[in-house]
């Protein structure tokens, strides 16, 4: 696709050189070049800082001490690696299963309660990880967890639920990540031509057989993208393993990184050594998925042929599916949100009891609403979330075109670079940004722009996966037809590729906007007084030990983001998130 339309000829003179330059400096080359440079710049800054910090000793010399600390001696690196793998594979598998099932039911069936299902699919994403883990501690800690004391103890005389340890970690991380899979798979199911399934049915295949043998293979690029993204995200998640794993002595790599980063002075060398280990696993995963996607042309389901998504009639299974939807909604959304709401009404945290119910009040909300800082922070968060989501999806739509559609040398490097911020600890990213922007005269440090840069960097991997998965499903024949009819690259990109991948891009926009709204780890280091964002207020409530204020802010955040998602979802309908490509 990138071959020049005019045969290249050797330059014979200065004029020839100028002509050659003019031919090459098309609008496409400039735009694509600029995007590639920006993406590379955003990703390289923290990466360089991480690598330099890992191999630099206190006296400025070269060192490998971080690696011997991280992987040698009493580090139990083997056990931690195993724990990390079990945690990442388990939670990614759970999230993938839940997200794919929810997306399939949402897009391809006539299941009842689609609004409820959409909420069930999205709300866990809205709740910050630390808050989601805490809500599950309230619900299922073995001694005073609400589910144990209010349901299991009275009914069965036992407290079987224990959220601490590996199964609890996998459950909480898996349900928290499920929306990521849901959003990726919704786009994929919408973009799928159902005539292939119909052919399978006409040939005698049962619905389940058609699903396994036709539907799933057709959405394979999105499935692979989702699996990779969630596997690496779970590997790099620190809140849930720290809050739920450490009490049971179950350490993963991120809990060790967290430990090294809590030391004064911070041990960058060891934290970097752990991060580089994660980085290698992530790159291997990325290469493996690229290998799995090598025949991507086979999965191009959006071609020049028009199709109309067909809803599968669930028949007698319809009420069961509806019931399961409600069950999941209660489990993943209602219970954690109710636990947070209950806590937000307390003066000090206590288990569920008549005495506690008699002491409920809205004091925490009054305090939050009265604080001018809350509204400023909300405004800042809103601006940053919308800005970061828009910039990231614009950049990654073009960057993913380069990766998926061209044979340009170095395209793999762009894909890899854009993926790496996922495994760079937030504090390392924050320090890297401080290092760079404290030394520039541009008005970035001390303004919201440094937060915008941080959020764009953090979200590059998500943007790339959403955009690439969408791009892979569009048949190259559409671009080729446009070129044959004389359309410029920009026209083709704007009028064919963007509209057809809009389902995935809008889904990615929603995801990035939400993550930016609740992003914490880098924000805490680079914000300035007057530029607080809502996640900083949440973290400050957590560090001040106010579970009640924290929960009240969380409920406020959930309410606002639910409205944002609902609006984005409605707006997304006009470009394909709901209706698909008809």
């Amino acid at each position: 696709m990138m071959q020049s339309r005019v045969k290249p000829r050797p330059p014979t003179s200065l004029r020839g050189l100028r002509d050659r330059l003019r031919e090459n400096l098309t609008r496409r080359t400039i735009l694509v070049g600029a995007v590639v440079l920006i993406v590379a710049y955003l990703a390289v800054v923290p990466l360089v800082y991480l690598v330099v910090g890992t191999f630099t000793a206190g006296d400025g010399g070269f060192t490998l001490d971080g690696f011997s600390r991280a992987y040698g001696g009493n580090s139990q690196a083997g056990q931690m690696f195993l724990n990390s793998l079990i945690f990442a594979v388990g939670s990614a598998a759970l999230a993938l299963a839940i997200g794919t099932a929810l997306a399939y039911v949402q897009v391809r069936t006539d299941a009842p309660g689609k609004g409820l299902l959409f909420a069930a699919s999205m709300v866990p994403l809205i709740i910050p990880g630390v808050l989601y883990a805490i809500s599950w501690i309230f619900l299922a800690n073995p001694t005073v967890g609400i589910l144990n004391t209010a349901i299991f103890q009275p009914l069965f005389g036992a407290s079987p639920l224990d959220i601490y340890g590996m199964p609890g970690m996998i459950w909480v991380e898996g349900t928290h990540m499920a929306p990521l899979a849901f959003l990726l798979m919704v786009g994929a199911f919408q973009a799928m031509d159902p005539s292939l399934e119909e052919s399978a049915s006409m040939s005698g295949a049962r619905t389940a057989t058609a699903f396994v043998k036709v539907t799933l293979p057709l959405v394979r690029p999105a499935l692979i993208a989702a699996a990779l993204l969630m596997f690496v995200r779970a590997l790099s998640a620190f809140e849930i393993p720290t809050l739920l794993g450490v009490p049971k002595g179950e350490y993963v790599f991120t809990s060790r990184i967290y430990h090294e980063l809590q030391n004064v002075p911070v041990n960058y060398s060891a934290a970097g050594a752990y991060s580089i280990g994660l980085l290698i696993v992530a790159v291997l995963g990325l290469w493996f998925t690229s290998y799995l996607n090598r025949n991507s042309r086979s999965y191009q389901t959006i071609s020049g042929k028009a199709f109309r998504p067909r809803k599968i009639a669930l028949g007698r299974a319809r009420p069961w599916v509806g019931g399961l939807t409600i069950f999941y909604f209660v489990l993943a959304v209602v219970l954690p949100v109710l636990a947070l709401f209950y806590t937000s009404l307390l003066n000090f945290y206590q288990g569920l009891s008549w005495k506690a119910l008699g002491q409920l009040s809205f004091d925490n909300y009054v305090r939050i609403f009265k604080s001018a800082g809350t509204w400023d922070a909300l405004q800042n968060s809103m601006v940053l979330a919308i800005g970061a989501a828009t910039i990231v999806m614009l950049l990654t739509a073009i960057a993913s075109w380069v990766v998926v559609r061209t044979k340009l040398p170095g395209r793999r490097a762009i894909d890899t670079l854009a993926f790496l911020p996922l495994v760079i600890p937030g504090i390392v990213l924050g320090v890297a940004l401080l290092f760079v922007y404290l030394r520039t005269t541009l008005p970035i440090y001390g303004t919201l722009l440094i937060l915008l840069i941080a959020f764009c960097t953090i979200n590059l991997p998500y943007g790339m996966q959403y955009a690439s998965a969408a791009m892979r499903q569009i048949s190259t024949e559409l671009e080729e037809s446009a070129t044959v009819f004389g359309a410029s690259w920009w026209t083709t990109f704007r009028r064919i590729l963007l509209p057809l991948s809009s389902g995935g891009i809008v889904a990615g926009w929603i995801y990035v906007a939400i993550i930016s709204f609740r992003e914490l780890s880098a924000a805490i280091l680079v914000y300035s007084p007057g530029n607080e964002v809502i996640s900083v207020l949440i973290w400050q409530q957590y560090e001040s030990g106010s579970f009640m204020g924290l929960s009240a802010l969380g409920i406020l955040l959930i309410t606002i983001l639910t409205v944002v998602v609902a609006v984005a979802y409605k707006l997304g309908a006009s470009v394909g998130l709901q209706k698909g490509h008809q």
Partner: protein
Amino acid sequence: MAGGRARKGHRMNKGMKFAGLSLVIPLVVTLAGCGSPNAAPPAATGDVAANSSVYETLNALPAKEQRAKALELAKKEGGLSLYTESPEANWQEYTAAFTKDTGIAVTTFRASTVNLNQRVLQELSAKRLGADVILENFGGMIGISGEDAFTKYEGAGVEALGDKPYYDGGWSAIAGYTIVPVWNTDLIPAGQEPKSWEDLADPRFDGKLSIAAEDGDLFGVISDFWAKNGKSQSEIDSLWKKIVNGAHAATGHSAMLQLLGAGQTAVNAWNYDFIAESAIAKGAPVSYRSADKIAHTDTFAYPLGLAMFKDAQHPASAWLFYDWILNEGQAVLEKQSNLTARQVSGQDEKAGLTIHPFPIEIGENASEWNDKWDALLRGVPVMDQPKK
């Protein structure tokens, strides 16, 4: 069919125009928002020579004239920039009181010790310091006191700091707090509470303890206390083994205390007294004092430090804040259940508590103690780790 396609194309164009607008408008809004008046101007380093002159002038004045001169100079500077790790409610209270007393507005950056230090170290290395003063705990102060960034306060308030008013680097302990075992009064009957650190190893607390996973320095402080009181290393190791066995390791002192109040565990092996006091004030069923109102376990004064920066943009305001916090500010800090400067320096006692000085050498070797604590919690042998 063709008409249908045309309509579809038209719909798609409309959709794309809409999508285009919905992309461009947010971008414009964002870029406009990022440069909004909310955005603080980038920090610029203060003039060290001029600052030095301000500090010297104020320190050299007779005690009675210092405050008035500081106030006069501070009013020309336009405000104070404070970096702190104090809980939100606390810093809001003492900065509001300072502003009320002096008329000087305070801009506060609040973060955890680790994040605060990272920010200060980066700003110092780029010579774009944003803080005039920093108020954080001993562990945090140790992390930046070697940067030669502080200047000593030598005003009249220094009297509250006792015989040794300055720590290495030139900062002072303007307040402090203690570590104490805290228990849930619904779950631990009166008389059964821990009354010494050794008590935590008693079988009656098996499976009932929660311990802070990040407190290597406090593990060091208690170990040091036992050693100084004649226990052998093997006795100390044995006690810790019993304490840690079956304990619930947790992160975050405030979170630990919240869950203690709710009854998740019966005892926090240790927590800060001011966190316990705050929970008690809200009605949580927790205590660190026995029925006789005495905390029987020996405790230690963990310093809360304040430092003025040589490169401060508002040196007179920094000096004024320091002076204020050692005078009027002491009552505000005490109300927040902190030890006063006089209590930390051993000049005054606190009712019902036996407070020992904090062993500085333990805090200065916190990384080493963190490694030992971490190894103990993970049940692995302690290793000699390479120097960081």
